[in-house]
Structures are given as C-alpha cells and as structure tokens.
C-alpha cells in the first residue's frame, strides 16, 4: 500500500515537473503580444484610428508574420 502511494506521488511530481519545466520550452518561433485589444473610447466621426501592437519573439528561431487580415 505504501509502495503504491509512493509510486503515485512520484508520478504526480514527474507530471508537475514536466508541465512547469518543459512548458517553458521556447524552442522555435514564439509570439507574445502586449495587449490584444485596444479601446479608443470616445472618438469623433471621421477620425482615423491608428494603433500599433507590439509583438515579441520569445522563441529561438525567427518569427514570421505571414499575413494580417482585417476581419
């Protein structure tokens, strides 16, 4: 019974380690965007709204922006 308990605990720690350590793997291109939504609040009709979103590549390979399509 004790052995079984230790085995389950061992598996639990291995899973936790895998999730935290391997989850932080930044291999390949990795995108990170600072704020995906921007609110201009109140604007006058006719104003041209322009906003620049900052993107970071936190990976170890070049990140490509293949396309930007207005939806």
């Amino acid at each position, binding site marked *: 019974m004790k052995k079984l308990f230790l085995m389950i605990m061992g598996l639990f720690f291995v899973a936790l380690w895998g999730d935290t350590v391997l989850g932080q793997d930044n291999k*390949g*291109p*990795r*995108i990170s*965007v600072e704020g*995906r*939504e*921007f*609110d*201009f*609040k*109140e*604007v*006058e*009709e*006719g*104003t*041209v*709204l*322009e*906003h*620049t*979103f*900052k*993107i*970071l*590549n*936190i*990976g*170890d*390979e*070049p*990140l*490509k*922006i*293949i*396309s*930007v*399509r*207005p*939806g």
Partner: protein
Amino acid sequence: MANFDPAVPPGGEGKITLKIKTKGYQGNLRKSARIKTNDPEKRNIILVIKATVKVPIYVSSKYVHLYGKGDKGAHKTIKILAELDKPLNLSVTDFTLKNKLKYAIETVQKEKEYRVRFTSISGVKENFRGILKLKTNYPEKPEISIVINGRFKPAKIPLRPPSSGIKKETPVRVQMPIAPIYVSSRYIRLYGKEGAEITKTVEIRAELKKSLNLTITEFNLNDKLKYTIETVEKGRKYRIKFSTIPGGNRNYNGILKLRTSYPEMPLITFVIHGRFMKKGPNDR
C-alpha cells in the same frame, strides 16, 4: 488597413499597425484583424480595436427596408437625434419616391429629436429603391441621406394563368404517355457476397386491352444465372425471377431479350449486372 513587420528575430520586437476610418460609423465600433504566424502554438491571433464613435446627429438607420405582402402595407420608422448641445432643424431637399411611398416627419422633442415614418401607398405593388435627403442646420453634418428599399410580393402566387372554360382551379397534371407494356425495371443488379444466392424479381404488365404473350429470344448468362417466368394473370401480367447460381462468383454482365406479341413494343431487353464481393474474415 494594416502595416506589419514580416519577420522578428529571436528575442526581438516587431510591430503590427492597424488603421480604421470612422467616417459613416456611429456608436460602438469593433474591428478585428487575424494575424497568421509561423509559431506552431499560435498560428492565428486576433487583434481588436474598439471605439465609441460620436456623431453630431444620430440616425437610427440610414437604410430603410420595406417588405409588403398582398394588400398588407408596410411601414418603418427611424429616429433622428441631436447629439450636440444646440438646436437641430431639418428640412427635406430631395425625395425620389413620391408616387410609391409616403413619409411624415414628426417632432418628438422640439429641435432635439425627430421621427421619420415611411408608409407604403396601397395599390403600389412593385419593388422600388429611392432616397430621402434632409438638410440640417449643423455645419458638422449638413445633410442626412436615407436610402429606401421596397419589396412587395403578391398574396398568393397563382400556379398558372386562369383559363376560360375551367371553373374549378385544379393543379395541372401532366399526362405522361402510357407505354403499351409496363416493365418495373430493365436493369437487374445482382450485388452481394460471393457464394450467396441473390434474387431479383421484375414485373411485366400489359397496359393495352389485348392479350400479351412473351417468348425468350436471347439469354447469354446460362451458366451464371437462372430465371423463371411466372404467369400472374394469363395474357396480362408476368413476373420474372432472376437468381444467381451458388458457386459462381465472377462478376458478369449480360442480357435477356423477350419478344412480345405487341407490335407497339415488340422487344423487351433486360440488362443484367452481377457483382460479387469476396468474403471477409468475419463473414461466415
């Protein structure tokens, strides 16, 4: 519109710029852009820009659609509201649907809020498209244009034009020419697992008031297929039963030709297809 850096080096920073024109918008505005990347975990990212567009004059709808059916009229009302802290006055400068539509401008709150009610004119049953132009005293918005679409359907679409001589309206039945002999199917498909006995039956019936007799003239599947002709009603109705010969498992095509006593249809030909699948390991 969008501008973006097509590539960002590892550890680097890039930019995606989105541009939106607010002309013609009023109230809440939400625009999104879908970003496609080569990040295997985030191949698509959605970026959103939001705003509340303030207008000097709020118009609840710049497009009016009127749908009418039968004698039922159609009407629609729109609201015009001053959003600036000064009196608003309206006057009509153009209306292109004078004979097709009526409109009325009602003051809800003096120099602040108005209602424009569009009503179809009874008797007008055609589709139309037009415009109502209003002049305002606001230099920020000197004109308001409202586009109007009218679509009218008759109450009931007649199945066919009324013809003289027929009192009762009945759906038209297309009289198909009757063949002198009815044959339930001329294509016999015998599909099944190899070794199994497959049968198909067809019916032959005289449609004219004279005796029908059948004689076999050609059959080219003697070693693969059996057939029996059964007389259901003498001189009038027959049944032919086709059955595979057990053991024969090759696919085949063939014909059975019958000569009839009817000069109107002297020959009946049946095309026969035999298709057999191999037994699977789970088949018994």
